[in-house]
């Protein structure tokens, strides 16, 4: 790597079409504000669609002539990123390639052993760790000493100790208020807290952290006000795992969003605990500009719910869907095909249950056994076979064969197709 400042850092996201990476926005905003890097590092962000060919990704990144490249990796873009990294290392042999994100953080050592082009993996939250890693690289020190980093020492993959979670999320500069991240086509992501109150065995949304840490209300309100006024945002995507986390938060967010909703601002489909939605809560969501919510049940099979440590109260679920619909809110009911413990009959019962509810939208997904999840850890114990390569789709379960899983997927797609074909 070149010793001469400024260190050129490229942050690369392969996102769903039309989106930009909020994670990279945080990482860049934090690093740009780090006094150790001031005047010594220059940052560029490249947000591309996940559909972009890895050769073209490598071409675009190489054209920036970076010394450090950081990729944000999920199960959906991992294969493309690994390909792009391999090519990039051939084009720029001295480039230092760092990856982070939910796909790689829980299996950092495996990733480095399998991907020789990658130099380091940032585990856990990336903001502090990535900034410190850049600082260490600038000083010519060893990256494997940085807390939260897995890297190579004399060819051996080693992991430094985990980094303590950021206690005060407001210490991360806002990517919006700092101008690091701009809206795309009138929409923007908003994150109000990190962590998840649930411990569902298949999910990594809480990134393995049960403790809820919130951005301050003032910070969230400032971001929303900035985006809604200055940037002309018409659609907010709240990425919080549960929008109605507590009645108090729901009331607060309703109060924040209501004035904007009156001016036509809308919320993209939010995730809710539908079993805690009654007529009052549904009315609040409506006032906040919510037109659609996404929820479970994921399964109605008792055994699968037990194995996945997920609660489901059928009566309250039905009541919640009814309350939302009565308020004019469309509900997207999600089912996961291939959960351990579910038989084919359980999956069919789930399809019947959500179809009978006529919630507004149905979403059937095949289980992806994600790194860091409880199911990833207990796959053998619960009888799961899955593709070790991302996106880690389930191959078979102890209850459902490979063939029947594929059949249930196709049937689920047909049900969604026919469900959508409505007046």
């Amino acid at each position, binding site marked *: 790597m070149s010793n001469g400042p400024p260190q050129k850092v490229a942050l690369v996201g392969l996102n769903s079409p039309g989106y930009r990476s909020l994670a990279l926005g945080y990482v860049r905003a934090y690093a740009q504000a780090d006094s150790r890097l001031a005047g010594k590092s220059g940052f560029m962000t490249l947000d591309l669609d996940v559909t972009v060919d890895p050769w073209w990704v490598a071409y675009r990144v190489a054209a920036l002539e970076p010394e450090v490249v950081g990729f944000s990796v999920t199960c959906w873009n991992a294969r493309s990123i690994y390909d792009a990294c391999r090519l990039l290392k051939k084009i720029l042999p001295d480039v230092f390639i760092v990856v982070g994100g939910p796909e790689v953080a829980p299996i950092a050592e495996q990733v480095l052993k399998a991907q020789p082009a990658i130099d380091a993996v940032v585990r856990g939250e990336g903001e502090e760790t990535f900034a410190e890693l850049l600082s260490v690289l600038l000083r010519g020190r060893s990256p494997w000493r940085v807390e939260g980093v897995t890297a190579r020492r004399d060819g051996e993959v080693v992991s430094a100790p985990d980094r303590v979670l950021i206690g005060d999320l407001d210490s991360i500069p806002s990517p919006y208020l700092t101008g690091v991240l701009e809206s795309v086509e009138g929409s923007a992501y908003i994150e109000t807290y990190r962590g998840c109150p649930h411990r569902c065995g298949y999910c990594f949304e809480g990134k393995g952290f049960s403790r809820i840490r919130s951005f301050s209300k003032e910070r969230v309100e400032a971001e929303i006000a900035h985006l809604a006024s200055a940037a002309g945002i018409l659609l907010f995507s709240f990425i919080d795992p549960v929008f109605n986390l507590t009645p108090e938060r729901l009331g607060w967010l309703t109060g924040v969003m209501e004035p904007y909703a009156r001016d036509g601002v809308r919320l993209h489909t939010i995730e809710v605990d539908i079993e805690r939605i009654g007529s009052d809560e549904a009315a609040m969501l409506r006032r906040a500009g919510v037109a659609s919510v996404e929820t479970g049940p994921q399964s109605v099979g008792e055994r699968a719910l037990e194995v996945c440590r997920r609660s489901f109260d059928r009566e309250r679920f039905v009541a919640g869907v009814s309350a939302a619909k009565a308020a004019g809110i469309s509900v997207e009911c999600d089912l996961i095909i291939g959960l351990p413990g579910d038989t084919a009959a359980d999956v*069919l019962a789930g399809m019947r249950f959500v*179809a009978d509810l006529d919630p507004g939208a149905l979403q059937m997904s095949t289980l992806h056994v994600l790194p860091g999840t409880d199911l990833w850890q207990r796959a053998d114990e619960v009888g799961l076979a899955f593709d070790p390569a991302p996106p880690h789709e389930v191959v078979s379960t102890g209850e459902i*064969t490979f*063939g029947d899983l594929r*059949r249930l997927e196709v049937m689920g*797609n047909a049900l969604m197709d*026919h469900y959508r074909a409505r*007046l």
Partner: protein
Amino acid sequence: MLVFHNIPFGGGDEVSCRRCAAGGVSAPLAMAALMRHIDAVLGAAPRVGVFFSDVGPLDHPDLPCLVDYAARAGASRIALRTSGRSLTDSAAAVSLLRGGVRIVEVTFLGSCAEAHDPLAGTPGAFKAAATGVGNLLDAAETLGVRVAVRGRVRVCRHNLQDLPATVMRLAEMGVSSILLACDSALDSRRSGDWVAAGCDTGTVNRVWVAVSGMDRDALGDKALHAFDAITISGVDG
């Protein structure tokens, strides 16, 4: 799954294998009778789907009025069955979707004109059906509406060995699902493998193939295909 209530229209000439039996021609039911049926169905179960079946809803002179009537009465979805012949005019497909029909079941007997037309007894029948499917999907895209086109294959001993190719052809056309409606005269033990092959062809092409009229055991490890994404009450295959 999605439940539809059957509203038989009567009338027309059913697409069926002429080598098995001659197609029946019956008189179309009067509009008043069909409206009473719609009232009865939606009165008992508001917001359900209705399925205009029998042999020729598209040939019924009062179809637009009846679709509108069902929509106003609260039907969540309106589906109908056709040979596809009436949809060879693209304007008819547009009109159908504008009226509110969102699920259309088109009947096939084979994978190509050489297989389908002799069984249907009508030269040009396959081309008409295929054109109808294409026109519907084009119209849906033009109008920006979600439509599900469903292929219905009437299975008898004369088209059994053509099933995998028929399913493949329907998948290429872009249907959302396929129903293999097996003739009651079929010997399950002899036909099960061909039906199962048709099911597998659908699975690998990401199109669901449901089977009716065949004992689930005859499907062996493909028994899931006895389940359909939609259920039409009061109809056999």
